[in-house]
């Protein structure tokens, strides 16, 4: 889980793993690791969810902890336009420092859609860049399950492609 602070990374994990939501904001210290067993195509998988502390100016994301990730969710707060810039910058660094990984962009806080400030043009821009975007709400649960499951199947597909390449 990557993104600026306060975008809802921890809440998305809470919603996905425990079907819970707390409106109280608690900043994540370091990293918080959770796991969830999912079934995909009849197969059981254990997802290790690394919920990283939100990026801020003087505390960039620790790429060392992203190194072994199979994929990542890039979370943006729809009500704060600048968190999209943070997400773009993180994606850039991940791509150049440790290489491409499957990822999805989650524009979170869809329950507050009326007050979103992500400019209309951003959607087209993200689509042009080939990014998959989902609008989620940890509060209502909107598309949260779908987000994790979509990423999981992308990761599985990437691994399958890799092993084919190895053959």
């Amino acid at each position, binding site marked *: 889980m990557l993104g600026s602070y306060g975008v809802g990374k921890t809440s998305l994990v809470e919603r996905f793993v425990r079907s819970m939501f707390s409106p109280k904001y608690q900043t994540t210290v370091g990293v918080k690791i959770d796991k969830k067993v999912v079934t995909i195509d009849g197969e059981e998988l254990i997802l290790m969810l690394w919920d990283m502390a939100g990026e801020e100016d003087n505390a960039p994301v620790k790429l060392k902890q992203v190194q*072994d990730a199979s994929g990542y969710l890039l979370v943006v707060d729809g009500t704060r336009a600048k968190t999209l810039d943070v997400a773009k910058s993180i994606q850039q660094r991940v791509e150049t420092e440790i290489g491409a990984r499957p990822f999805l962009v989650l524009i979170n806080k869809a329950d507050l859609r009326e007050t979103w400030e992500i400019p209309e043009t951003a959607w087209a821009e993200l689509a042009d860049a080939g990014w998959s975007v989902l609008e989620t709400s940890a509060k209502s649960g909107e598309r949260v399950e779908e987000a994790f499951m979509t990423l999981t199947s992308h990761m599985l597909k990437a691994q399958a492609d890799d092993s084919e390449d190895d053959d």
Partner: protein
Amino acid sequence: MTPKTTIDDLFAPFDLAVFEQLANGLFQPVGRLPVWLSLSDGPVDLADRFPILEIFFPECDAVWEGGSAEPVQSDVWTEPDSRGGELYLQAVATAAGGRRFIALRSLPQALFTYQQLAHDFELEKEKVERLSRELEVKRREAERATQAKSDFLATMSHEIRTPLNAIIGMADVLSLTSLTREQQKCVEIFQRNGVALLNLINDILDLSKVEAGHVELESTDLDLREVMARALEVVEVRATAKGLSLSQTMGPGVPHYLIGDPSRLRQVIINLLGNSIKFTDQGGLEVKVELDPENSEPGRLRFAITDTGIGIPEDKLGLIFESFSQADSSTTRKYGGTGLGLTISKQLVELMDGRIWVESEVGVGSTFFFTARFQVQDDQTERTAEPGLQNAQASVAELEAMAAGLRILLVDDSEDNRVLILSYLKGTQSGRTDSTIDIAENGLIAVGMFQTGRYDAVLMDVEMPVMDGYQATREIRRIEKETGAAPTPVLALTAHAFADMAVKGYEAGFTELLTKPIRHVTLLAALAKYGTGKGGAAIDVPPPPAPAPEPAQTSIRVRVEEGMEDVVPGYLEKRRADVPVYRHALDAGDFDAIKKLAHKMKGTGAGYGFPRLTELGAELERAAMQSNAGVIRENLEEFANYVEKVELEYIS
């Protein structure tokens, strides 16, 4: 015997969970584990329990392999504790005598409180910023809506007032001809209702201006007795006609010389008096001014207008200041009016930092109170009023005498307008001291002339090519500021008078906005008022007799006003010459050319004594804006017919 020191005792004060790595890779706790860590005592797979250690162990190897003597420490991570809270953990690796140790420590929450607070603060700040942006958007939307309303009203007022003026004017003309008693009665009804309708429209526009916040009070010298006298003068005729007495008293200590907005104060008093007269059939009215008994601040006054009228039921007392509401809807039928006067008064009084209310007893009468705040002039010694300004109605001759000797800069791109205004001013040049009039064809030329010449007044057209009247006036104000000169009155002339234009104009520095078609006496009065440096006292201008076209099948007769003999025929000739130009433009589909021609005619026709040309100009302009060839053709034929048939009649 000394007690045996165990490794437990050694590590206990540090509150650490210490493990040693076994040959099979598992970790064996060393000594007692701290209470915050729930783990069994046996060997444990630490990386399974704390997955973050997977990425830490490779770093530990440097220490464990003996390459580094310095312990290494991991990044901090969060673990749930047994009570639903959180632990912030960190691992430290060290080696001793070839043995591999790792210690876990729990960091105090307080270390991270600052971070939490900083994030809370930042998120709240962003939220406030977002909310203020939203408010700003809403404010702009509201402003746009108000703007649209103002624009609509501007257009409507122009469209309604033009034909209405024609109706009233024609009724005036008709009343001067020989009529039977019955016809005379009909014409009077036209006149009375026409004026009532015009007043209503003016009220609505006035209210919309106040509501849109487009009214700013003047802050100028105000002679309280003068304001009262003028207000009483206006209503006197109506009071006398109903046999009502009218009196005023000034309480002790009320200062006469104030600073405020005399015309708005007068408007409120007139509104309230007019209202009282309407609802009073016998007895009388009294206006009383005293120091505000509830506020001793200097300049706080309370006005009371008492009548002996029908009174207002108690439950309706609060309602009467609302728009379009009278105490009883049957009142409207019986007494007429819209009740807008009270609403406007309320708004104006509030602008004067006061309040308005009424006390009343049914069948006995009502007292309307309002308070207002003024500044008190330091000098309260008696002054004698300017002679000549005392009379509310000044004649053209008097006004001409007052405006004589003025140096005037006339700025207008339309030759027709210039000729018209010059003819209006002719009378100011025949006296002992002639006025001088310089002409500029646009704002830019005017600014140049203003820099070198000296003027008592500037007559400024608003819509002009190259530089318009707003910009030119701003430039003039700037020049005055730079040179420290006193502001020259700038009297702006426009075909569409409305709040926005007025606001924009007054912001640019207009002294007064005069509406075209401008009347002879209005122009002179404005020049007399502002140009002579005797500003402040308004002059009520009597409506001049309307020009008199006699409707006829074969010819239309238009009476040429005195002093206009030299210019009217030329003007009419030019309009006749316009007919083929219009036709050509219509054939070519050049609506823009038609619009421009028609706009000019709209602004000048009535001024030269042809209100019909102003009407036709308006029709043609509107049709041209809608590119409606059919309507243009219709009006064009009428226009051609009119200018062909019209005959000028001179008064000998």
